[in-house]
């Protein structure tokens, strides 16, 4: 039997509502280069799970070429501060970062043919912790985080969610999903990523309901689970 044809992409396209046509309210000038960049920053902040002390932002391709004029650098910084795309402080993001004690450096990297036209790489530091996030802005303010610490991912920030890093052993997934079930949280999508068999696994679950903080405490007690991060949904997603 021939293998089942893979769909071209498994990013779930939601049915457009009328406020995606008249709307969103956003800070200009570009939904892909500004609003989307804020969302990439938001997603990186969510995945890191705490306020970073330092961030290195690298812009590629169109983000690198036209980023200054579009305020892409400011938008990414704003995103890392947790601002939404319609926040009027985006234009002053660098100063806001200084006030918040977040050290930022931005590098315009030029072209990289391996990356999407609108790509940003964000490296976050807090003490000895470090996370590398790669994200692309795919238009209309929508984004996809394609890599986290070398794991291939497809995180969009459009749902509530949970990220775990755990051992590649039987039963961990059922512990996590069981815990969510107990809390009455419904899973919309679920993906696991591992670099090779037996390596640690990164799992990102998109859920319909917000995840109660207790989930983190429960899962942190499991000896196979190293990291649990509760992911908030983008503010204006409905």
């Amino acid at each position, binding site marked *: 039997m021939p293998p089942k044809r893979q769909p071209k992409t498994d990013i779930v396209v939601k049915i457009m*509502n009328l406020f995606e*046509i008249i709307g969103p309210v956003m800070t*200009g000038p*570009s*939904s892909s280069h500004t609003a989307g960049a804020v969302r990439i920053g938001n997603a990186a902040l969510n995945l890191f799970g705490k306020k970073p002390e330092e961030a290195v932002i690298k812009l590629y391709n169109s983000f690198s070429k036209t980023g*200054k004029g579009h*305020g892409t650098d400011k938008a990414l910084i704003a995103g890392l501060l947790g601002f939404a795309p319609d926040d009027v402080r985006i234009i002053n993001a660098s100063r806001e970062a200084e006030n918040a004690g977040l050290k930022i450096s931005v590098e315009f990297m030029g072209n990289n043919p391996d990356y999407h036209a609108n790509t940003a790489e964000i490296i976050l530091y807090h003490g000895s912790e470090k996370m590398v996030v790669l994200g692309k802005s795919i238009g209309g303010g929508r984004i996809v985080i394609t890599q986290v610490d070398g794991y291939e991912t497809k995180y969009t920030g459009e749902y509530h969610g949970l990220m775990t890093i755990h051992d590649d052993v039987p039963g961990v997934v059922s512990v996590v999903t069981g815990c969510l079930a107990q809390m009455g949280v419904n899973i919309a999508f679920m993906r696991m990523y591992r670099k090779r068999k037996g390596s640690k696994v990164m799992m990102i679950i998109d859920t319909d309901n917000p995840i109660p903080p207790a989930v983190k405490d429960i899962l942190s007690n499991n000896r196979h689970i190293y990291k649990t991060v509760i992911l908030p949904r983008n503010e204006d997603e409905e």
Partner: protein
Amino acid sequence: MNRLSLSEIVSLAEQENRSLSGLIKERESADTGVSIEELTDKMKKMYEIMLEVYQQGVESDNRSVSGLTGGEGWRLMKYIHDAKSGGIYAEAAARAMGISNINASMGRIVAAPTAGSCGIIPGCLITLAREHGKSSDEVVDCLFTAAYIGKVIAENASLSGAEGGCQAECGSAAAMAAGAGVELCGGTPKQVSHAVAFALKAVMGLVCDPVAGLVESPCIKRNGFGAVQALLSVDMALAGIESVIPADEVILAMNEVGRVMPVSMKETAEGGIAAAPTGRKIAEYLQNSGACCPKRYK
């Protein structure tokens, strides 16, 4: 899945003798599970922001982040009493460009349908409302009609300059404004669809050629033109002029034109005026010196 079409909802509205916006609100409420009151409140908020933004837009210079543009809407509004084309066209263009200036200066706007084309719908509708004493509630209703037209275009073609050129972005905004404008002025649903067709046909084939890849030149001025195009489409439709080609077919034709349009002319800043000698010089200047180029980059 059956694709959305304008003809379907227009004939339903004509049959049941109802307004397009009324039907559209009902449908949206059924699709999303959100009550009509809540939807209307949310759209009111969009309109309030549009009103705020246009005020800021025509009040002052509003230089863009790159320094390349600024003050287009403000200048035209200051000049309005001398306008040779009759005030309303210039006013609509001034509002549209003023809003676009705010967008380019990293202000807060309502994407309609995109950030790059955000001046056209408010520019056209605010002007019609003020000129003809229409209430905010009436305009808000018509924004639903505009949004539905945009949704039909999104499903059958595209609203993005990167996918379909400027015809898909500013052209679609003008078509949405034109259809909504007809309803605002008391036209029939059929006249709404004719106005949509006129506005789209006016810029069929228009390329997206932003200088240095920025949403500034020619985008800001094209927002002005889009608003004027929408106003003329409203009058043509209300006058009883009919589109030879039905709106749904015009939308599909626009999609096909966008498909065969060279990539260099779809927001890549490699064709059109972006590739003109001065366009290239500006791009180079901005890349080397960063933002805030002095007025005289030449």
